[in-house]
């Protein structure tokens, strides 16, 4: 994902959704491990995806900010960081932390 971000700066392409997710999570949580997988193709056309137009993403994230936090709290921190993208750009999010 870091390579993609670098290419974007050089070519000034519009920020893709995974890039935006990466930027927002990096700013908010300074993760030590971050993998973002766009799974939108798996769900294209199902009821919810059609209505909101948002994508499905799976995120693997490790952050020092998660220390001592429950899974519920960690998920809330990720959702808070990505709030501006939901639900228009992100329809569903699977989080492994």
């Amino acid at each position, binding site marked *: 994902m870091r390579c993609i971000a670098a290419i974007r700066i050089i070519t000034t392409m519009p920020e893709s959704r995974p890039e935006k997710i990466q930027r927002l999570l990096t700013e908010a949580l300074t993760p030590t491990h971050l993998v973002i997988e766009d799974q939108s193709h798996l*769900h294209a056309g*199902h*009821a*919810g995806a059609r209505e909101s137009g948002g994508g499905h993403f799976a995120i693997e994230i490790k952050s020092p900010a998660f220390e001592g936090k429950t*899974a*519920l709290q960690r*998920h*809330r921190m990720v*959702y808070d960081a990505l*709030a501006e993208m*939901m*639900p228009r750009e992100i329809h*569903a*999010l*699977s*989080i*492994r932390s």
Partner: protein
Amino acid sequence: MDATLKQRIEDQIKSARVFLYMKGTPTFPQCGFSGQVAHILNSYGIEFGSCNVLEDMSIRQGIKEFANWPTIPQLYVDGEFVGGCDIVTEMHQSGELKPLLEGENAA
């Protein structure tokens, strides 16, 4: 949020010890995440209440605000928000879900 709507949601989650907000019904889920949680709950052979948010737009939006949680499904046990699909699946795999559903942790 609207007081009447909040009351409706509170009444719903109190109507059963285990209550699930989902897209579709436990028999005919209309979203993979909702279906997965319903499937996990069914695997414990417990009775649970459910609400199909696709049939009620005010609940569909209201429940997100109520729980401060942006997605559906949402599982409640004893009136407390437990989590969405990832958390329920994790708790199922780690063995934490069984005592919670069976009330062994109840004070």
